[in-house]
């Protein structure tokens, strides 16, 4: 089974709306991201908002299109372009000056969500380890708490992705506690398996905090 197939199998078991922690190793990170967005867009037919604090939206959009994911119903919030000094004129994209402006990211997300035309919507946050580079741990943890509760209140299908090797331990525990479901992708910490995929797909008791 490929990584994509495995992720899809696990996603199929989840309810129509959840707060999902997508925990991947570095190697399979893009595949995990693309497989999940592919499921949301092509299988569930959701439109949504993709928040990037890792790579510029132009790159992500190209990568999605190349993988057969139409991006017409995906809006973006980009908080990296100002850091690297690129062009900030992508369609359907709101820009935030830095990944440390967490509240502004939430406000831009709200605005972009209103523009999404599909009845059911997703929010994909790429990535928690990216935010950890720019934010104090306490602030980031407060944000995750507020953000996940906010998304849950709005009943949005929410995915928080994080690269396992780069996620601070406290942030990882909080994500496990606050999210409704977890999908693990790739080698788990410490292990050096080559093509090991298939995390447990551990399912937490629903509810979170």
């Amino acid at each position: 089974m490929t990584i994509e197939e495995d992720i899809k199998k696990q996603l199929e078991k989840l309810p129509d709306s959840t707060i999902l922690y997508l925990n991947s190793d570095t190697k399979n990170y893009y595949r995990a991201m693309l497989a999940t967005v592919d499921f949301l867009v092509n299988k569930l037919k959701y439109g949504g908002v993709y928040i990037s604090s890792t790579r510029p939206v132009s790159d992500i959009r190209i990568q999605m299109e190349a993988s057969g994911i139409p991006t017409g119903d995906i809006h973006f919030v980009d908080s990296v372009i100002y850091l690297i000094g690129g062009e900030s004129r992508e369609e359907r994209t709101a820009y935030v000056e830095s990944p440390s402006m967490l509240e502004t990211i939430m406000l831009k997300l709200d605005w972009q969500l209103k523009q999404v035309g599909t009845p059911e919507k997703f929010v994909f946050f790429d990535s928690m380890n990216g935010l950890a580079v720019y934010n104090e741990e306490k602030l980031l943890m407060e944000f995750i708490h507020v953000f996940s509760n906010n998304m849950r209140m709005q009943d949005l299908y929410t995915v928080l992705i994080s690269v396992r090797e780069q996620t601070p331990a406290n942030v990882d525990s909080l994500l496990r506690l606050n999210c409704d479901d977890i999908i693990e992708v790739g080698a788990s910490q410490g292990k050096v398996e080559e093509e090991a995929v298939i995390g447990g797909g551990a399912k937490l008791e629903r509810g979170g905090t």
Partner: protein
Amino acid sequence: MTGIGGLDNILNGGIPLGNTVLVTGTVGTGKTTIGMEFLVRGAQKGENCAFITVTEPSAKLIENMRTYDFFDDELIKAGKLHIFDLHVIYDHLGLEWGEYEIRDMDILLGAFEDIVDELSITRLVIDSITAICYQLQNRSAIRKFIFDLGKFLSTFGCTTFLISETVIEAGVEKYSVFGVEEAISDGIMLLGNINRKGDLLRTIQVVKMRGTPHSRAKHVSDLTPDGMAIVPLLKWGSDMY
């Protein structure tokens, strides 16, 4: 209800009718925008609203406001939203821009009163009160002017934003240049920025509002095409003072 997203939550319902609110902040913090949105939201509900612009010509103001989706020219055509240039009002009154006499102040107050009365204005914005105050000779003249203004506005049930600039004096931020504007106002809304590792987040805080139990916490705001949006400031991300 002001109709401005998020603000009514902070205010626990809205601004009590007839309150005079000082909307104050440093340059570029969104004072003019929130003032205009306040009027547009009122006009959309059928209220008669007026904006008195002092610091920039009305044509320029309208041009800037057209960059927002919430701004609607139709409200002006429908006679729900009026925009007055203070300089034009001066010309009509035969007043000179510069220092006024007490008598001129009374004439100006009379003109404001006529606007509110004749057009049945229930929402008024004066942008900025600081610019008007600069022309009054002293604190007691300013005090009297704002006091008289507030008094007639509240009798008319006209809710008013007086836009003001904050000043830093000896390292302390003051809500107004002359220090009397805030004492006389029924409410103060402070617009500003916080610096987080070199990035500026826009903030809004209701410092005082007579007649309503409100949140005094600092919130983060964003100017969207739909107007101002607001979320609470994260606790661990606030600045030190």
